[in-house]
């Protein structure tokens, strides 16, 4: 007999009546013309980035990434940007779209004002490599410095370590991070002080500090109590607004600050 732990849902009906708009015709797919201003930079030719304009016709649920692909594949093959999964889980295509950090694959054109020019540029605060590509190494360096891995001591259990659903919930939000750098590169403190760990590194430290299985919290808190640590955060909420995964980053940073104070070095 099953020791079922979740609520069993009742067996759904074999047949239901569907409203017409769901079962059948829902009209044609709208198309619209968009104008893009894209910040271009060729490191082999240019001193600095400059804007170039492109006009494209796009459809229905197309995203900014689709427009970039259309430009690259049909107009100008030299336009360079990173992308991979194209649905907001790999974190490759963070860029500044109309002045806000977002993922190009998660920004639908119909949600932007397409009557105006759409601007696209590389994220700020990291060295520009080419067009929309920046050097991610400083970002990952900060990430590595907070020891983003489970630290335990003593004998390993034979089976899994136990953890209650409540304990798991305490760090659920920060496990969603995809390391796209949208948050860190939207932070005004990071722009002026590249030494600051930045929100993404703190998010990933939070993920372990609040994991009931982890024993490395004190070490991480000590690292983040540094002058380039959590105290640099000025609570501008840019990071929270930028996060494509909806992580409450400012709240996570506040929780880390609290933890530093409570452990009082």
């Amino acid at each position, binding site marked *: 007999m*099953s020791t*079922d*732990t*979740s609520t069993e*849902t*009742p067996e*759904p*009906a*074999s*047949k*239901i009546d*569907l409203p017409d708009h769901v*079962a*059948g*015709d*829902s*009209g044609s797919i709208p198309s619209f013309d968009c104008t893009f201003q894209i910040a271009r930079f060729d*490191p*082999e030719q240019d001193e600095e980035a400059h804007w170039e304009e492109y006009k494209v016709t796009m459809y229905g*649920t197309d995203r900014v990434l689709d427009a970039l*692909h259309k430009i*690259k*594949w*049909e107009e*100008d*093959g*030299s336009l*360079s*940007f990173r992308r*991979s*999964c194209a*649905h*907001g*889980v*790999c*974190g*490759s295509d963070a860029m500044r779209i109309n002045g806000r950090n977002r993922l190009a694959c998660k920004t*639908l054109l119909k949600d932007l004002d397409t009557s105006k020019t759409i601007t696209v540029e590389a994220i700020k605060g990291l060295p520009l*490599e*080419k*067009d929309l590509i920046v050097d991610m190494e400083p970002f990952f360096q900060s990430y*590595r410095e907070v*020891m*983003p*891995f*489970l630290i335990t001591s003593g004998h390993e259990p034979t*089976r*899994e*370590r*136990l*953890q*209650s659903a409540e*304990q*798991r919930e305490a*760090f*659920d939000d920060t*496990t*969603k991070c*995809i390391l796209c750098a949208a948050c860190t590169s939207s932070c005004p403190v990071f722009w002026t002080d590249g030494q600051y760990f930045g929100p993404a590194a703190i998010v990933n430290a939070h993920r372990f500090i609040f994991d009931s*299985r982890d024993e490395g919290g004190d070490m991480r808190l000590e690292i983040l109590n540094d002058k380039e640590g959590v105290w640099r955060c000025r609570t501008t909420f840019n990071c929270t607004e930028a996060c494509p995964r909806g992580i409450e980053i400012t709240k996570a940073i506040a929780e880390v600050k609290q933890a530093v104070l409570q452990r009082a070095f």
Partner: protein
Amino acid sequence: MQVHQYDVIIVGAGGAGMRAAIESGQRARTAVLTKLYPTRSHTGAAQGGMCAALANVEEDNWEWHTFDTVKGGDYLVDQDAAEVMAKEAIDAVLDLEKMGLPFNRTPEGKIDQRRFGGHTRDHGKSPVRRSCYAADRTGHMILQTLYQNCVKHGVEFYNEFYVLDLAMTEVDGVRRPAGVVAYELATGEVHLFQAKSVVFATGGVGKVFKTTSNAHTLTGDGMAVAYNRGIPLEDMEFFQFHPTGLAGLGILLSEAARGEGAILRNSDGERFMERYAPTIKDLAPRDIVARSMANEVREGRGCGPNKDYVLLDLTHLEPAHIDAKLPDITEFARTYLGVEPYTEPVPVFPTAHYAMGGIPTNIGAEVLADNDNVIPGLYAAGEVACVSVHGSNRLGTNSLLDINVFGKRAGIAAAEYSKTADFVELPEGAEGDTVALLEKMRTSDGTERIGAIRKDLQELMDANVQVFRTDETLREALDEIAKLRERYNNVGIQDRGKRFNLDLLEAVELNFLLELAEVISVAAIHRKESRGGHFREDFPDRDDEGFMHHTMTYLDPDSETDGIKGMRLETKPVIVTRYQPMERKY
């Protein structure tokens, strides 16, 4: 040109590559070469879970898991490999938990488990809760956890290094890997990496199709590189079409939705899977569900303006339950289709998802040179490989399991091999072919565009080599691919630069896609039966007498197959241990 030397080179940093690196890095001097930053790999897009018979929530055992895997693969599974995978699944999940993976938990604090397609108790009696999961982000958590542990162990990565060739040298009559040739995207430089052992973990080839759940970067690189060096590809005709891709987009909606109780409906509002798989209905294996959906559409019961999709109905589930168990996929439906899954069914249609075939290996992850011999020092794991645990149709969750079990095995084996083996001398001018190819591409000024050829290829494959196939559609595909290859010879790229020349990268990838599309089509022509993910309308039944074997495709300059010069097809026996083929009903 820079030349590097490592004991072990791992190509690819998705789940399989990083799982291998964690093992190899602690035993031998190891470097991981990866086209993408590791956390960008497509393992991160996997959603539903990883099956293991932990029996945390109900009775289960690895033997049932083995049986389900064999039956799910329509008996083309090598049963020794399936046994290894199902047995080692338990430790693979526990390893990940100890590395820090935040699994969902039972009220007792153990790893929670849920239902998944084709996974059953006691040889098909009813669905079983076997999938260990972290909401619908299991792949993301696996990728992050493995990367975290690579950081912990100081694994050396070469990020954005694209491996374009495998250097092989014959030693005492046996071909062995000497190293790999890589193209550094940031600088445009070619690097040579000498190694005692090489592990391929480069993932799949979904981008041969238009409608796919795969990332843009999944262009079959490792398969093509191996094939071009004379290594066979196994069972390439078997491609999995995942039932529930967002209609028109192909973005994956996990089978976990159906595991949690969602069902499929046609335009009559009918739960049509009751007709196709009366016992386990919507939780039948993917090939069966995908075909059933496509059949509903063909018979005029599709939905939408073009009646070309069906509906995934979650509306009878509690919103709180959906939020807790399926947060990401419901957000995909909202973001990309503007559909609210609490109250409206979601438009879905099969999407090209997974290559069951690939570089042939044995259970030690050693690459096979042919049916009887391994290539000493060369390993493969994950989607790029064919071990074959998935046979003709992979069960949901078994890919996350495959990368962990065989990634680990490959990492240990490659490191142990390097301890006793010597470096093999690199062939003279090992980088020559790659340098020539890159220069030819960089200066190409033909009139054809990469984007146009790729689009035509993908549309061709969707039309002719998808869920339903016939001799006619497949031969048409081959004819058209030949024309596309002609056009490819007249391609021109626009980026003439060295640094981050992704125009050039896409041109190289497209060549791999064209080659592999040809291999897939030829293998599909020759399998005149229907089995698992390969359905031939002109041969609708499984034919165990004629086709209970693997397909091995070789690049061979002296052969000709179906008008394709330079290709040779052979067969390889299926390894059967416990289970004789039976009729596959659910």
